[in-house]
């Protein structure tokens, strides 16, 4: 399915998907807020309309997205214990060179380069705009990969930067967080003490009020699950896209494919990368089985597509480029 699209179609598809997901999150927040309005505050009815709850919910979502955009990247970088790459160290120098090569290939300014002193191989990108981004790589990755494979990994991260994925995933994570929090809050207030108020405000109205209440309850219960599924779907799409546009930079999809194979065999949790940064990494740092297996659960709940599928997609690309890459 995904493999059949070329890079431009994939990019267009991603933009559409992103838009739909953002819209859905705003709708979720709105619905939760609207419920508060009509069942608790009584601010929305036939003769009175001031949706305080709805506006507050949507504002809360966008506020938390904005807040995490401002400080998120720096927090991720410092919590992983990443140190700036040192040009005097030969392996670090190699990494610096490879990053500069990829910056030239993509026509972007060179991002700052950091090394995480962790033996597990992984890599991630941070920063909201290409002008002030950082690429971080673990020491374990540097020790294990050849130059060609390292180039593939760096190209993947460079593509995350070029496609503004870091910013997108930060916003999606914040919106998801806001949705989870509000839905949780709504559920709690239903179980404890909300009942009397609800009866007072909606009791007077007809059956329409009851239907609305059922719809709202369904929304409050389903929003967290659907929201999570959507966030994961966006994350997986972005990984496929970064693989593809990374291959466009190196013109050598097999480099990344062989790097992924090595990362797969060393699939243990990366201790220094915290849960909140999982969607920024090249492979899932939490070592969850769900990302490495194929099947229905992996298709729905993984932050990353199954590595096997990513490798297959890259090999298909190598076949399409033809010529030297298939021989390599």
């Amino acid at each position, binding site marked *: 399915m995904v493999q059949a699209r070329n890079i431009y179609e994939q990019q267009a598809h991603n933009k559409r998907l992103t838009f739909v997901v953002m819209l859905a999150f705003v709708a979720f927040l709105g619905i939760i807020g609207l419920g508060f309005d009509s069942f608790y505050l009584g601010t929305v009815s036939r003769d009175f309309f001031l949706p305080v709850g709805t506006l507050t919910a949507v504002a809360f979502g966008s506020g938390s997205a904005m807040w995490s955009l401002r400080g998120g990247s720096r927090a991720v970088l410092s919590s992983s214990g990443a140190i700036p790459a040192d040009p005097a160290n*030969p392996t670090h*120098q*190699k990494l610096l*060179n*490879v990053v*500069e*090569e*990829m910056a*030239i*290939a*993509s*026509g972007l300014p060179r991002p700052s380069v950091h090394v995480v002193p962790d033996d597990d191989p992984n890599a991630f990108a941070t920063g909201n705009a290409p002008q002030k981004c950082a690429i971080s790589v673990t020491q374990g990755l540097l020790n294990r990969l050849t*130059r060609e494979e390292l*180039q593939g990994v760096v190209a993947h991260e460079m593509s995350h930067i070029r496609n503004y994925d870091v910013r997108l995933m930060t916003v999606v994570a914040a919106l998801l967080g806001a949705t989870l929090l509000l839905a949780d809050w709504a559920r709690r207030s239903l179980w404890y003490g909300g009942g009397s108020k609800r009866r007072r405000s909606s009791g007077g109205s007809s059956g329409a009020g009851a239907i609305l209440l059922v719809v709202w309850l369904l929304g409050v219960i389903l929003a967290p699950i659907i929201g999570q599924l959507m966030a994961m779907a966006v994350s997986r799409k972005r990984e496929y896209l970064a693989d593809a546009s990374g291959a466009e*930079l190196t*013109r050598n999809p097999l480099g990344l494919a062989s790097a992924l194979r090595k990362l797969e065999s060393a699939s243990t949790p990366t201790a220094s990368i915290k849960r909140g940064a999982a969607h920024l990494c090249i492979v899932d740092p939490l070592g969850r089985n769900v990302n490495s297996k194929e099947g229905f659960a992996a298709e729905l709940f993984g932050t990353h597509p199954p590595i096997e599928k990513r490798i297959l997609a890259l090999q298909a690309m190598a076949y399409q480029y033809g*010529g*030297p890459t298939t*021989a390599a």
Partner: protein
Amino acid sequence: MVFFYVILGAVILFIFWVVSKYNSLITLRNQVLNGWKQIDVQLKRRHDLIPNLVNTVRGQMQFEQETLTKVIEARNAAVSAKGIADSAAKEDVLSSALSKLFALVENYPTLRSNENVKQLQEELTSTENKISFARQFYNDIATKFNIAQQVFPSNIIASMFNFKPAELFEIQVAAEREVPTVDLSLKK
């Protein structure tokens, strides 16, 4: 009177359109020039690194004088190359001479483990990559520039202001790939 305003509006819109198309062509042309400068920067770096490498390995590789001379000659020819096609051809010769030298270095354990040689080799490999990525980027942006000059209606603006299509690099991957095979047979 209304008719006059409609004509006036159309003329103003047309002028705006011409200006914006012209500006976007100028922007592209500057990006192409900048892409070309980037290649130059990397080529110069390579030309500067090569004498260092040759001097470092010369003492150990007395039996390979011919290869070393070839590298230096290719380097000097590349430095004095003029124009895109000429420079591309001479740089290709230099690339193959260099990769032959790298393959030979593998036969000398003392050189292979020498930190200085390793560092120079890494620098040259990276510069080599940067050159090809800079060319790749140049080709992409130059193609964009050329397409903008050829598609309707911006081709009218392009011919009106006498824009010239940018020259592209022919990346001779096939020729470059052959070199390592030759080296493998030498090593036996």
